[in-house]
């Protein structure tokens, strides 16, 4: 029963940002995402009062997917963040916080949007060109001859998601697994275009995290009943595989749009079954050892194959078809008639494996770029979070291969950038003032708003009331405990900066973040020794963060450019 309702006139609101409601909702969203940020971030539980599943998370992907947002400005913001996450997996919270900060800071200034947008764009291009330049001191080129940097990157991603509930030992284990799974997807003899393989994440809930494993090839889950029917596998060094994408159930499909007039006594089912048996005979005569089918295999055909010592596994599902065809080197067969011998493939070995309480049929390939990551965690919510994290880490590694750089994490990139921008706009403002036609004051105000947005972003890594300092040599991020006695010479306290690159052994002078101080030129050109010496660094994915920065500034500009919101009520 649907009720017809006349179209109500749309609601038109001008200046969507100035209202109290807008400010409050923006502040609420900002508080929400800020409190999730970083390794010490607080977890959020999303649940419906009526019951259903509960999501415990601190990741933007899960958080924003479940968060009901009503204000149009916030809708734009969350949509931008979710799209960013869909593209890069990582850096969602970074983008969200930066965007909120920018909108809030600029809103407070009350300058004309044109100027703000122009200057923000200019500052953004300053950041991106610096981050892409050779003398950028917060970017490290990845050395693929050792696993150190890649492992640090994976570790940083894992530790920044506290809802995975991992202890240090488990973090080590999982990060090694992720890196190994990733390395298995890289083809051995890579040519110009590397086509990466795939790591399939296989769920195994309720097990210890430490039981997680990486296996080359594909795991197909089989039920115990099916398992009983599978014969003991004979020893051989190669197994011939046929992979079907058509249904082998003997149903009559594709009889056309016309009518079939079937005479009495003629059984098409039998005819179809005959055809299946012919197919079975051909498979047997071709010495196929394993028949895999995306859809259903007719029980009679299964029985027939079993009697001829051919293993048949059906209901594979469409998602496994592509990796299976890759692993075995088969063409998925779409014909019930004669099969071309070239469409058969092979695997090196077959075995039945039991992990936890689940049975798997394990296809071990000769040489391929497909592997299975068997992921264990104690409960469902933690497993979901861990799975998302693993996907993020794998994606980050893929992006790193494309653009072989990583950024310093732990807030150091942000504070360093702030120092760079402040110095640059203070010392070389002429070009900006000429190109963008704005006044010195406007430039300073906007720069301050932009920098404080970045600083506040870095500052939100600290959740336990600690103080944040920056040094005046590298412009890095240093965190110290709260309530330190004033008598203590506090520059001695922080032992390592946020990313772990520098230690306080050096003679450094510190100042509070967000305190007024003289702009200084941060040291550019990262030395090789510096990166080599530190064993565990906190690192961020370069591509994801760079794009996140751009998306955040562009979205903030978009939001600030809104002068009117027209909403349909029904």
């Amino acid at each position, binding site marked *: 029963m649907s009720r017809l*309702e006349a179209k109500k006139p749309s609601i038109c609101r001008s200046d969507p940002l100035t209202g109290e409601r807008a400010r409050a909702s923006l502040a609420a969203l900002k508080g929400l995402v800020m409190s999730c940020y970083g390794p010490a971030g607080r977890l959020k539980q999303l649940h419906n009062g009526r019951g259903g599943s509960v999501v415990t998370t601190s990741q933007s992907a899960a958080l924003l997917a479940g968060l009901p947002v009503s204000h149009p400005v916030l809708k734009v913001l969350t949509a*931008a963040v979710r799209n960013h996450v869909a593209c890069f997996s990582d850096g969602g919270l970074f983008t969200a916080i930066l965007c909120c900060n920018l909108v809030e800071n600029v809103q407070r200034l009350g300058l004309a949007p044109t100027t703000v947008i122009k200057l923000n764009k200019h500052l953004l291009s300053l950041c991106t060109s610096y981050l892409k330049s050779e003398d950028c001191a917060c970017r490290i080129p990845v050395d693929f001859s050792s696993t150190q940097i890649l492992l640090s990157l994976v570790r940083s991603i894992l530790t920044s998601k506290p809802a995975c509930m991992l202890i240090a030992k488990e973090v080590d284990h999982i990060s090694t697994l992720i890196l190994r799974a990733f390395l298995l997807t890289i083809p051995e003899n890579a040519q110009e275009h590397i086509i990466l393989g795939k790591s399939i994440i296989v769920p195994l809930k309720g097990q210890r995290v430490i039981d997680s494993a990486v296996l080359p090839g594909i795991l197909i889950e089989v039920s115990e009943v099916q398992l009983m029917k599978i014969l003991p596998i004979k020893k051989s060094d190669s197994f011939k595989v046929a992979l079907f*994408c058509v249904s082998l159930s003997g149903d009559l499909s594709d009889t*056309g749009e016309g009518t079939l007039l079937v005479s009495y006594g*003629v059984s*098409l089912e039998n005819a179809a079954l005959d055809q299946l048996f012919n197919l079975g005979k051909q498979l047997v005569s071709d010495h196929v050892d394993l028949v895999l089918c995306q859809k259903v295999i007719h029980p009679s055909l299964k029985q027939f194959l079993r009697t001829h010592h051919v293993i048949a596994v059906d209901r594979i599902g469409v998602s496994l078809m592509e990796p299976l065809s890759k692993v075995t080197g088969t*063409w998925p067969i779409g014909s019930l008639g004669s099969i071309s011998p070239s469409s058969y493939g092979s695997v090196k070995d077959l075995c039945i494996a039991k992990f936890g309480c689940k049975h798997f049929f394990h296809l071990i390939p000769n040489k391929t770029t497909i592997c299975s990551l068997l992921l264990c965690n104690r409960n469902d919510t933690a497993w979901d979070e861990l799975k998302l994290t693993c996907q993020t880490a794998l994606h980050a590694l893929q992006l790193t291969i494309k653009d072989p750089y990583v950024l310093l994490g732990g807030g150091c990139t942000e504070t360093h950038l702030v120092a760079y921008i402040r110095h640059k706009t203070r010392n070389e403002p002429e070009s900006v003032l000429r190109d963008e036609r704005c006044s010195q004051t406007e430039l300073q105000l906007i720069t301050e708003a932009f920098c404080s947005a970045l600083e506040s972003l870095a500052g939100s890594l600290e959740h336990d009331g600690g103080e944040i300092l920056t040094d005046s040599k590298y412009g890095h991020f240093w965190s110290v405990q709260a309530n330190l006695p004033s008598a203590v010479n506090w520059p001695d306290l922080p032992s390592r900066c946020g990313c772990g690159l520098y230690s306080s052994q050096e003679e450094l002078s510190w100042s509070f973040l967000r305190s007024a101080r003289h702009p200084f030129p941060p040291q550019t050109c990262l030395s090789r020794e510096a990166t080599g010496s530190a064993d565990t660094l906190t690192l961020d994915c370069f591509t994801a963060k760079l794009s996140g920065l751009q998306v955040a500034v*562009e979205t903030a500009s978009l939001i600030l450019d809104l002068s009117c919101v027209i909403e349909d009520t029904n």
Partner: protein
Amino acid sequence: MVACVSSHLRKTGDGAKTFIIFLCHLLRGLREITDKEKDSFLFENIQTCGRHWKNCCRWKFISQAFLTFQTQILDYVMDHYLSRHFLSIFSSCTKERTLCRSSLEMLLGAYFCGRVGRNNHSLMSQLMCDYVFKCTACESRFEEVLELVDDCFVELKVGVTGLPVSDSRIIAGLVLQRDFSVYCPADGDIRIVIVTETIQPLFSISGSEFPLNSEAQFQTSQFWITERTKAIVKHLQNQNVKLLLSTVKQPDLVIYCAGLNGISVVECLSSEELSLIQRVIGLAPFVLPEASSQYELSHTALAKFCKPLILRSKRFVHLGLMSTCSFAPHCIALCAPVQGLVEQHENALHGAFKMLRQAFKDLDLNCVTQTSDQSCTSGPCIYKNSRESNELPKIVNSSIQRSYQDTVVKNKGELAKTQTNLKVCSNLIVPSVKLEQNVLCSTPKVAVTDSYQTDETLRCSSPNKGRIMDDHEPFIESNSANSKPENTRREISYENLQVAKLARKDSILPLRYKSLETCTSQSYYSSSIPAGCVLPVGGNFEILLHYYLLNYAKKCQQSEQTMVSRIIANAILGVPKILYKSKKGNYSFPQVYVRALQALQTNQPMISNQTGLESVAGKYQLLTSVLQCLTNILTVDLVISIKRQPQEVYDQDSEEEL
């Protein structure tokens, strides 16, 4: 009003806001006038009618006056006065019309300024400009390209969300928004075949009956189907086909066979995609032969490459088609953080293509001029003056002479079209170049065909010592299919007689203006706004029109024409008034207006402080659309509101819009 605006926008892609502003000002102006002249404006016979009826008649009368204005005066003013201010987007240094990149950028920049966010419009106009130049395989045929891009824009763009806007780029080749059903990597040129039906024969076609009498018959039929499918695919392979584009979903068997034979398959192409591909490569769908015997494959085309393209972890089909038309296939990947922004940019780009398409069309104007009786000298051609001022005589007159001879000698009873190009390039340092040119064509009246005489005087004076480019293209259409001399109808249009001069030193644009006096024995000639005419933005067009309309109104004898011209002249000024609303001081509207008027009165070039151009054709179309809308509104005498199901009304509305 909304329906009128949207239909205007659909056609021209530009001017929706100006439409509303102008229309509002017109209506306000009308109300003022009618309030003032309550009774003086009435016919005598209306006085007997009721008050309401009186009003209606008056409105009807006014609307007719507007219609007359639109069809007669507007074109006359455009042609006689405004045209001398028009600039051309083409760089006329060369013989052929070539698009001037910087002018195009200015035109697009001004267009995008009002349509996309402040931080993106320069990027968008750059992108679009690059796109137009990349897609144009043949310089002189960009109109076709624009037409194709406008028609198939939806298929030529790919929206990508989640990436910064600055990542938007142009992709060489065509991107189909679906994945391969089978992908077989292939090198070299790829032969393509398009099919519109399933390759596998169906068991029975719709509406028919297929009697099955035995199981064996069923099996044989299936066997035959399989074999035939294989044979067709095998045949395609033998013909070296590497890519099969299908508008329908192909059965598994076809996909399997294609994969085995190294043929990539793309299924479920939409009809729009199909028509785009067909336009680009001129390929007709492959018709399955009745008999499975040997047959030649006539309908194939080639592609340079065919590979998957990954955008935002989605796979697309990327085709490098070898174009057989003037369009070199390219796609635009539009990136933005949110879907809404992608759509905004898509719409803006599509509108920009529409706008360009209109801007590069010749727009015909009808001008009815009073018969002028000027004595026409008959005699041979005189090129005295033009030769004097010409450094390159060989280019100049050969064509004219030829056309002259053609018309004289042949003078067949057919439609004779002659186009002549006269180019006068003089770099002489002459304080004022006076160019007088008489093109006289006369044929003896004794002949079956008739004669026509033209006397055309072109006077141009250039204050600066600069290059004078003269692009003279008389378009003579002599239609004398009818051999009776008295019944011959002739149209002689003199077109594109331009004197392009570099008046402003900083401007790269040639100023084209027409000072054309034609003396024909006919009183009717048609002229047009040539393709690519532009004016600087910032209300230039509006101020010019305002000025010349007022001038016209002063000269005009008929009272209602004077009134209508005044109303329009004042209403059109509302547009620049709003444009300059936020400006202060020297750039405020009164200042700009006064400066412009002074420049016009002293015949000096108007100086615009804004960079950016707008198309004259677009402005002209906008004017006519508004006037038509206004006459529509004015002729309605009663609005009857009817009550119906809201849903139904809504549906009807949408149907009408379609």
